[in-house]
């Protein structure tokens, strides 16, 4: 059955901004889908609001709409493009929910659009708890499939009644939410009120499921694919090391399943196939989760997703079976046996991969960004990223995965004294899942806990516990050995010990261990992920290291360039850097190089074996990278390594790699260091006559105080060498400064604290530029909408800048050139400026790809990362202009009157984190980055673009109704005009007393509600009620006073968290307010249109302009 010939165009919906629970795995799946559909000759129309994705590159679709993923906007795209079919199973829950809404409101029928991949009926059957339960219960009895006893509830009364029967603890699962939003485990009635209440609110159908607790059961997941001829294959089994009770996204997971006999595995397989058949997913994939009682094997089917998921991405990387790619082919009519297996090329996709290695995925958390958040792991996903590692055994894979996290405290460590370990205390600690639990399990083992005791405390399967014991035993052997013999060293390496771990145990540096190891010829070999355990020859060089006997790296002729990726996603380093790495790979491949990608993030496009000529799925540590380079040098010529595109991770390796004789292409490590180095960089600025805010460095409180006294408060303090503003704070007085120094633990002469004058009232400007030593190409100039002091990653910005004049732009251009030249950039540079009282201050310069590169590329239609990669390998900007990579004339600082305005808005994860008391963490923006993702709004006018960005990022701006205003005294003057405009537009203004008074005096009537602090008792909840009930459509609340130490005043906190919980847009700066008013006006005028990036590019090229 070849592909359907009745479809000629397909609309693909992406997953929007990166949020916890929905990250770049959907860029990976969507990009694969777009590639497949286009290669089949179909016209691909794409909607995705996230500019950082690779799928939204204009070359991946015929029409790319960077527009909000809401039913309204997608309908406009459908009306304009009239696609034959809609593929929504590759864009996560966002795409699926949007497709369901478009079906429910009749849009699909109206325009004759067929939903492919999974039918509406199948999606409903799979996602609706009642029908799913009926399906599981209808399976043959011999399979023993059960569902947990449960009850569907639509109100708190329902919940209370249900729990009478189910008992506590009870699991709360809201329907139709992603990443387990709003779910949790309630141990008593108070917790039930809190969790189920939030769950009812989070569910679009006001529905939660309460179910019996199966905490501590073994947890499994199967990835299943089915075609229209009813052929079904299981792509991968995944076992969670953390048993039931921890969200799969937060669990350490292992593929394949390790602790099932064939009989039990086949039962799960039969059930999975039975479920996908009954649900009726007939042209795509789904995943099914199971819990297995370790006492007796009782099987409970937890849930299924009738779409590609985060686990699908993991399974694809773990097996070499590209689920999304195959799903896209099935959706357009192929059957599994008609699709070749890419890796073997000779065998078909209608088979089940078999693994001769072990894959371990570990989550990466960001609790340090949310100091007040509850760090316990529950069914509510909290991790922001993950790393995957492959080894020939579990111990090797686990230890590689832990060091892939790039957190010094993540890897096992035998360096510390063990004498004080308190077994009972440790057993109590490990009974509660939390980040870093495994290390405490190791400690408990050292403290003498038996496998039985550990199992009782954690319910982690005894086989895994024994593997941990094995690691401990080897560490003990290494500790006790008289010398590190070749046999012992080899044994330790076979179980994943890094040189650094061994060095710590033996009291020597990692470099020394490496030297000894190399002298003894103990090096890893590289095996291949081939889907078939070597039964057939693999054609795709997808490698992982192992301390085994035979390597499989093939010799090559072409010169190779290695590209180091960015590792696990974290706040401050995410998909944007993967975007740049992928672009470099594509560009360098075109330029005739053999591209070799090294990365360990399974969610990304860079770790798709299709992206680069060779893929090494390896940790990004010096040891692992050096070994890859060695292996590739054995295989053929290596031109150099690209470190500037993957963010701080590869950048941090640059100097050490160079020391080891590895050529770094592009900007030299010395230049990178210069830009980071205050003194040297200050000299560059001084030579060029560029002002920087007064600043100094210190390694102690007296030093910092001296600097602050000299330059005056407020000051911005931060550690050097960080990304994402980690540990950055604005300090208003000496006491806060002392407090900051007290808390900052990593201060040393090598890593001093930077103290800068904080420019209170400045406009911040971000610039991305290319420099080749002669010419400058200004990629884009972005004007921040929020005032200075908010991290650029969290700030919204506009490109081209909306209020800067030609003189400002000239100054920016000249300054950028001077800095790029002074630093010695060959490739990309990102510079942050602050414009204050007509003086352009240089805040910082980073000679590398920045977070904004993809945004600028989308907004201006120029592939900056591709250009950068070619510059790094020696081409000039003139060459690239001639080659058509860059425009023949002009640049991003000079976009012309026809260019659209693009607005970037950050998306914050505040709704994922709660304090120990169950409250949402505070939502204030500050100098430390906390956003997980971003969206772009693009249109001819700023207001419209801003409104689109808001609609893409959150609930969207209201066009009528009530607006609540409460601003700090310093902001009162600036809020009068925009609030008056809102009143003129017919909004009803509700305000706190002080704000209302100022408004009244300016002729704006406002209803007064009392602040919490003004009312001592529960009567105060009127304000929160207004917000929680959704009566208020927009909240404007600017912070009162300082924000240091994460303890803003309570009032604002209550207001903002109520807004976040209720999904009401909340604006926390006056600049944001002004922009919002423009957006509201634009939206009220109606007729907000949609337009593809290709169409904008055409308009700019021909000068036809914005219609």
């Amino acid at each position: 059955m070849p592909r359907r010939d009745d479809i000629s165009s397909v609309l693909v919906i992406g997953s929007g901004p990166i949020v916890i629970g929905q990250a770049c795995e959907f860029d990976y799946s969507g990009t694969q889908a777009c590639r497949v559909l286009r290669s089949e000759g179909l016209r691909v129309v794409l909607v995705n609001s996230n500019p950082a994705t690779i799928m939204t590159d204009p070359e991946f679709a015929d029409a790319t709409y960077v527009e909000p993923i809401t039913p309204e906007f997608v309908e406009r795209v459908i009306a304009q493009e009239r696609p034959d079919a809609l593929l929504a199973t590759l864009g996560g829950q966002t795409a699926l929910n949007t497709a369901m809404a478009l079906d429910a409101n009749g849009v699909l029928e109206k325009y004759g659009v067929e939903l492919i991949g999974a039918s509406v009926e199948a999606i409903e059957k799979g996602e609706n708890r009642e029908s799913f339960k009926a399906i599981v219960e209808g399976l043959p009895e011999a399979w023993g499939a059960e569902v947990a006893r449960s009850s569907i509830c639509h109100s708190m009364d329902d919940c209370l009644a249900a729990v009478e029967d189910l008992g506590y603890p009870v699991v709360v699962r809201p329907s139709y939410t992603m990443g387990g939003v709003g779910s949790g485990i309630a141990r008593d009635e108070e917790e039930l009120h809190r969790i189920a209440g939030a769950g009812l609110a989070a569910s679009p159908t006001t529905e939660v499921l309460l179910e019996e607790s199966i905490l501590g059961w073994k947890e499994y997941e199967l990835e299943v694919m089915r075609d229209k001829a009813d052929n079904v294959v299981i792509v991968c089994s995944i076992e969670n090391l953390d048993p039931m009770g921890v969200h799969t996204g937060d669990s350490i997971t292992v593929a394949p399943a390790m602790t099932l006999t064939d009989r039990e595995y086949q039962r799960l397989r039969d059930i999975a196939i039975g479920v996908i058949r009954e649900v009726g997913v007939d042209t795509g994939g789904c995943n099914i989760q199971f819990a297995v009682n370790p006492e007796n094997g009782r099987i409970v089917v937890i849930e299924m997703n009738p779409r590609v998921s985060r686990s699908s991405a993991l399974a694809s990387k773990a097996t070499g079976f590209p689920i999304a790619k195959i799903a896209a082919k099935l959706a357009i009519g192929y059957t599994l046996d008609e699709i070749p297996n890419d890796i073997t090329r000779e065998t078909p996709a209608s088979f089940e991969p078999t693994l001769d290695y072990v894959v371990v995925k570990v989550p990466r958390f960001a609790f340090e960004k949310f100091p007040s958040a509850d760090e316990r792991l529950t069914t509510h996903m909290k991790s922001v990223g993950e790393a995957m590692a492959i080894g020939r055994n579990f111990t090797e894979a686990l230890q590689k995965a832990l060091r892939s996290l790039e957190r010094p405290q993540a890897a096992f460590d035998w360096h510390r004294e063990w004498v004080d370990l308190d077994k009972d205390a440790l057993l109590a600690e490990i009974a509660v899942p939390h980040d870093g639990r495994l290390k405490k399990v190791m400690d408990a083992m050292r403290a003498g806990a038996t496998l039985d005791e550990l199992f009782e405390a954690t319910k982690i399967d005894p086989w895994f516990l024994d593997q941990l014991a094995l690691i401990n035993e080897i560490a003990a052997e290494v500790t006790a050995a008289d010398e590190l013999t070749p046999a012992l060293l080899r044994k330790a390496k076979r179980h994943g010990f890094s040189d650094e771990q061994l060095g710590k145990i033996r009291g020597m540096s990692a470099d020394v261990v490496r030297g000894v190891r190399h002298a003894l010829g103990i090096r890893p070999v590289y095996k291949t992920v081939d889907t078939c355990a070597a039964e057939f020859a693999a054609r795709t060089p997808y490698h992982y290291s192992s301390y085994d006997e035979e390597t499989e790296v093939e010799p090559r002729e072409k010169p190779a360039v290695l590209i180091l990726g960015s590792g696990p996603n974290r706040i401050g380093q995410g998909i944007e850097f993967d975007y740049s790495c992928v672009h470099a790979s594509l560009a360098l491949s075109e330029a005739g190089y053999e591209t070799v990608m090294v990365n360990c993030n399974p969610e990304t496009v860079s770790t798709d074996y299709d992206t680069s000529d060779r893929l090494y799925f390896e940790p990004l540590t010096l040891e692992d990278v050096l070994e890859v380079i060695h292996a590739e040098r054995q295989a053929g010529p290596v031109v150099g390594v690209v470190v500037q595109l993957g963010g701080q991770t590869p950048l941090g390796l640059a100097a050490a790699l160079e020391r080891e004789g590895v050529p770094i292409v592009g900007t030299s490590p010395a230049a990178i260091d210069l830009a980071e180095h205050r003194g040297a960089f200050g000299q560059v600025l001084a030579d060029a006559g560029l002002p920087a805010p007064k600043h100094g460095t210190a390694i102690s409180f007296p030093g910092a105080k001296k600097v602050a006294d000299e330059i005056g408060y407020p000051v911005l303090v931060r550690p050097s060498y960080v990304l994402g503003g980690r540990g950055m704070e604005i300090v208003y007085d000496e006491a806060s400064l002392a407090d900051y120094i007290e808390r900052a633990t990593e201060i040393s002469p090598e890593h001093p604290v930077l103290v800068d004058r904080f420019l209170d009232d400045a406009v911040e400007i971000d610039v991305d530029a290319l420099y080749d030593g002669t010419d400058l190409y200004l990629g884009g100039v972005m004007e921040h909408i929020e005032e200075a002091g908010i991290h650029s990653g969290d700030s919204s910005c506009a490109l081209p800048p909306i209020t800067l004049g030609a003189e400002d732009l000239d100054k920016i251009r000249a300054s950028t050139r001077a800095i790029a030249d002074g630093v010695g950039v060959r490739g990309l540079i990102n510079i942050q400026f602050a414009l204050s009282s007509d003086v352009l201050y240089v805040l910082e310069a980073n000679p590398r790809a920045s977070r904004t590169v993809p945004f600028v590329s989308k907004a201006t239609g120029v592939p900056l990362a591709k250009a950068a990669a070619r510059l790094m390998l020696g081409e000039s900007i003139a060459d690239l202009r001639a080659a058509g990579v860059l425009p023949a004339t002009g640049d991003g600082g000079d976009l012309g009157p026809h260019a659209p305005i693009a607005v970037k808005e950050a998306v914050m994860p505040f709704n994922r984190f709660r304090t120990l008391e169950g409250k949402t963490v505070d939502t204030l923006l500050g100098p430390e980055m906390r956003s997980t993702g971003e969206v772009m709004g693009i249109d001819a006018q700023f207001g419209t673009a801003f409104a689109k960005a808001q609609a893409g990022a959150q609930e969207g701006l209201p066009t009528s109704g009530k607006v609540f205003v409460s601003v700090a005294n310093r902001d009162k003057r600036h809020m009068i005009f925009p609030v008056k405009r809102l009143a003129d537009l017919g909004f009803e203004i509700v305000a706190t007393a002080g704000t209302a008074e100022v408004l009244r005096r300016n002729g704006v009537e406002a209803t007064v509600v009392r602040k919490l602090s003004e009312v001592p008792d529960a009567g105060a909840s009127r304000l929160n009620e207004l917000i929680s009930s959704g009566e208020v459509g927009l909240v404007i609340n600017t912070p009162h006073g300082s924000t240091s130490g994460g303890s803003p005043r309570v009032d604002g906190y209550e207001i903002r968290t109520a807004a976040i919980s209720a999904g009401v847009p909340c604006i926390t700066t006056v600049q944001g307010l002004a922009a919002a008013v423009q957006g509201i006006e634009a939206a009220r005028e109606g007729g907000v249109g949609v337009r593809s990036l290709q169409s904008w590019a055409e308009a700019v090229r021909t000068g036809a302009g914005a219609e």
Partner: protein
Amino acid sequence: MSRTPAILVLEDGRTFHGESYGALGETVGEAVFSTGMTGYQETLTDPSYRRQVVVMTAPHVGNTGINTEDPESSRIWVAGYVVRDPARVASSWRATRTLEEDLAEQGIVGISGVDTRALTRHLRERGAMRVGISSVSTDAEALLATVKSAPSMSGADLAGEVTTAEPYVVPAQGDKRLTVAAVDLGIKAMTPQRMAERGIEVHVLPADATLEQVRATGADGVFFSNGPGDPAATTDAVALLQDVLRDGTPFFGICFGNQMLGRALGLETYKLKYGHRGINQPVMDRTTSKVEITAHNHGFAVAWPGDLDAPHETPYGQASVSHVCLNDDVVEGLEVHDADGELLAFSVQYHPEAAAGPHDAEYLFDRFADLMRARRGETTEATTEGTVR
């Protein structure tokens, strides 16, 4: 746990160093690799592995220990066992002991810690070959000599070594509806079990059973099981099967039974370069065009004369290829239709009883039951509950 050094030597001289696993000693056999990630207990007790040294491509083996329900026969049959990372504990609520204890007790010599992937690739590129394992001597030269003097699998008639000494009956579950005479050429326990689940009383007969013994059971159909060895060397069973076909008795064969059918029909069998051993093999049922994921364990296959689509005339009726492996187009199933075009006999090269392995092909037991009922003039019944399809 400290282990004794051990070596593995292939007949072409390639040597791997590792550590002992299971019993200490020395063993030789044919080196084959199995790619299943689950089901080691079933594999070890499958008589088809007689005289074979099994290399497990899955690195971790033994994790769930040994239980009393999963063995496919009363003993471990493999001649040797090669794994990378043996489990130190048994983790399963059904486990009664560790795998290593069982191996040691049954005298199975194994080796652990070797690069099983390198070994597998070697066998893939150079074909199945003889191998020796020793944990009593690390003299590779001496072991190589022993390996070279060991008999080859080609030409080996092994059914007699694994078959049951005495006939026995596996009673039907529920109402008995049919009777089958199953010739044990190395039968796995799950096979009569699958038939019994369908109301079939199974009379398991030794490999040297005669037509009279078969007839004496009053069987509605005859079944030939899987088993070890070279089908070309197993002539008595072929002769028996020819008699059965001449009688017009419904026939179903699995694995070695498929090769027997092929030879009975006058087709040749041949040795595959490295065989199919695993539980992930895609097979297409050419009668329905559906793909099933199946368990395989075969080193030999039936050679089809000419185009796979073209039927082949035989003295017993028209033979055709019913199943093929999609990986390499190896013949995986045969059908014989009589002069009236009615199905008379069929067989598959793989394992629908699926222990270990997926249950996708279980429908073949229904097909067999349907065939026997049709021959008795009964109407076909609905498929048994528990069948995947």
